[in-house]
């Protein structure tokens, strides 16, 4: 009589042999699966959880020295989790679509017993005593946590270059950034160093790296995923979301981590979190609006969009434009063309695509940086060298210790935002800057409300360019902030948005397009994104 595990091993080997795969080949084969496909095979007994871990850690061993996606890897813990999860799967106790899937977590998500650094010196030795709610839900669904990914320090940055632990490289071109701030998560998914990951998005920090690394990333409606255990940056803007190989994985992950949590007072009670139901839904008749003002930023407008420049868009060229067409606020013509092509594909699938004027686009960045800096300066007051993390040595006096600890513990970009935030909240400037920004935020929200009275979703670019070279972005902060133009208004208005790969530029770098939806309309976004993905796949030449 064969033991159960022996039987499964046979089935698994047979499965691999049928495809003519053995050893190294089977590893590569396993890495081709999406998270949901992998879990299906594990639950069917064709693969074991440890096969998936072996494949992922082989990829990590090979690629990680160059890419540096992770701050912390927990290999032993991962194999221990795998054994427990395998047992529960074998007993039929774990049936979730993510059971047995190796996951990576951005290092600002608290993990009980595992370092959580936010890629900052000030938290270099912080080990939380509890896990974030989203992480708990993922673990209850049978995901295997393999490590914590690199990020911009405290999620402040768009390139992952502000990390205290060094840069992460883009797997598609290792001289380029993976985007940020969830750059480690995006690069790890793209490189096969995990099957899926969680990130956080305050101003585009999931969607932009997803676009730069050629993976799918989603920021849910504010309040959909509990922020309990997410180290706070801009609390009114922060949301946790998935980075994944495809749209179906994204939906499955979001379904697992979403839901009301009494531990987060901004967590919403919404009953429509069965996001996987949207996969395969028809999009005929779906009304999609393309903001003309998004494309008016294009330096040489491609196609009909962008010719009818609005007054607002002309003003946009006043700041930070360097005229190179590859950086600053100018939309790269190759990106514009790929995004408009994606719109065409959705039109062919039955969507009704139309141009419109969104308005206020160029006011989103100054509004965002005022509000985010203000909230950051307040949120980061807790890092004082007393309860956890780094403390500057040799202090006789308490206030001196605070100042030295914070000055040595925070990096340049974090200090820049804390200073700006402290200023805009200071007496005498509070009304002129902070309250002004909150008023403009109300106007931006209203502009979106008006758009969603006419459209089911808004389609546009994720970022004006593809991934820049390492070292190109940090010297001019305002120029770097301008790269967030298409993503940050979504956070200000609390809306859901998804970033989906839609081709490559001539340099071979991934391009993404973005679908933005009204509050709680994730299903529409997922349905459209999935239809696009299917159509794009059909158009690919056979491998």
């Amino acid at each position, binding site marked *: 009589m064969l033991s159960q595990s022996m039987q499964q091993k046979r089935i698994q080997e047979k499965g691999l042999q049928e495809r003519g795969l053995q050893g190294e080949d089977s590893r590569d084969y396993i890495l081709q699966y999406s998270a949901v496909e992998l879990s299906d095979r594990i639950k069917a007994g064709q693969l074991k959880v440890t096969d998936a871990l072996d494949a992922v850690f082989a990829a990590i061993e090979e690629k990680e020295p160059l890419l540096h996606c992770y701050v912390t890897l927990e290999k032993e813990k991962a194999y221990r989790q795998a054994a427990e999860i395998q047992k529960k799967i074998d007993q039929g106790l774990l049936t979730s679509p993510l059971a047995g899937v190796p996951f990576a977590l951005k290092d600002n998500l608290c993990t009980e017993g595992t370092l959580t650094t936010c890629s900052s010196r000030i938290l270099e030795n912080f080990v939380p005593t509890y896990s974030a709610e989203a992480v708990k839900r993922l673990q209850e669904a049978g995901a295997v946590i393999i490590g914590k990914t690199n990020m911009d320090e405290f999620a402040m940055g768009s390139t992952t270059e502000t990390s205290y632990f060094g840069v992460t490289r883009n797997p598609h071109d290792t001289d380029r950034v993976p985007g940020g701030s969830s750059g480690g998560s995006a690069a790890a998914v793209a490189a096969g160093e995990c099957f899926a990951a969680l990130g956080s998005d305050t101003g585009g920090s999931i969607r932009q790296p997803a676009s730069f690394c050629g993976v799918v990333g989603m920021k849910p409606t504010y309040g959909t995923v509990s922020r309990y255990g997410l180290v706070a940056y801009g609390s009114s803007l922060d949301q946790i979301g998935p980075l994944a190989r495809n749209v179906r994985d994204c939906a499955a992950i979001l379904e697992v981590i979403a839901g009301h949590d009494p531990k987060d*007072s901004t967590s919403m009670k919404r009953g429509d979190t069965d996001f996987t139901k949207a996969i395969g839904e028809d999009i005929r008749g779906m009304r999609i609006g393309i903001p003309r003002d998004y494309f008016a930023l294009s330096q040489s407008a491609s196609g009909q969009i962008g010719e009818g420049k609005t007054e607002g868009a002309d003003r946009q060229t006043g*700041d930070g434009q360097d005229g190179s067409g590859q950086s600053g606020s100018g939309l790269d013509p190759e990106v514009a063309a790929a995004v408009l092509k994606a719109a065409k594909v959705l039109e062919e699938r039955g969507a009704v695509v139309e141009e419109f004027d969104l308005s206020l686009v160029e*006011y989103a960045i100054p509004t965002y940086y005022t509000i985010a800096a203000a909230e950051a300066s307040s949120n980061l007051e807790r890092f004082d060298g007393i309860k*956890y993390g780094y403390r500057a040595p040799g202090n006789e*006096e*308490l206030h001196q210790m605070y*100042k030295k600890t914070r000055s040595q513990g925070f990096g340049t970009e974090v*200090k820049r935002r804390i200073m700006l935030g402290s200023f805009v909240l200071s007496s005498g400037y509070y009304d002129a800057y902070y*309250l002004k920004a909150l008023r403009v935020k109300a106007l931006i929200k209203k502009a979106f409300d008006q758009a969603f009275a006419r459209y089911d979703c808004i389609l546009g670019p994720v970022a004006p360019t593809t991934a820049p070279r390492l070292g190109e972005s940090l010297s001019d902060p305002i120029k770097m902030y301008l790269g967030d133009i298409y993503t940050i208004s979504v956070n200000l*208005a609390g809306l859901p948005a998804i970033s989906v790969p839609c081709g490559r530029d001539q340099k071979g770098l991934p391009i993404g397009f973005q679908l933005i939806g009204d509050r709680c309309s994730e299903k529409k976004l997922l349905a459209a994104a999935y239809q696009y993905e299917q159509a794009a796949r059909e158009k690919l030449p056979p491998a």
Partner: protein
Amino acid sequence: MSDPITLETIDYVAILAKLELTPEEKLQAKKDMSDMLAYIDKLNELDTAGVEPMSHVFQVTNVFREDVVTNGDDSAAILSSAPACKQGMFQVPRTVE
């Protein structure tokens, strides 16, 4: 439009932010903040008279929950992350004479 940022402003903001900046960092901070505020001044192009400041995008007020303890005694684990502790408490530099 805004008042020019002086080194005195930077010193004052550094006190609020509990940061100690080197002379070079102060000069850089002065430049960065001046640039950023000049950019933020763009918001003054918009007439926001009568517009209510929006702190929360979706109307939520006073979310309460029952005051019930759900966690156990984690003090040993919590203190193990502290830079310094003594007799089960966080240890800090002298605060009073």
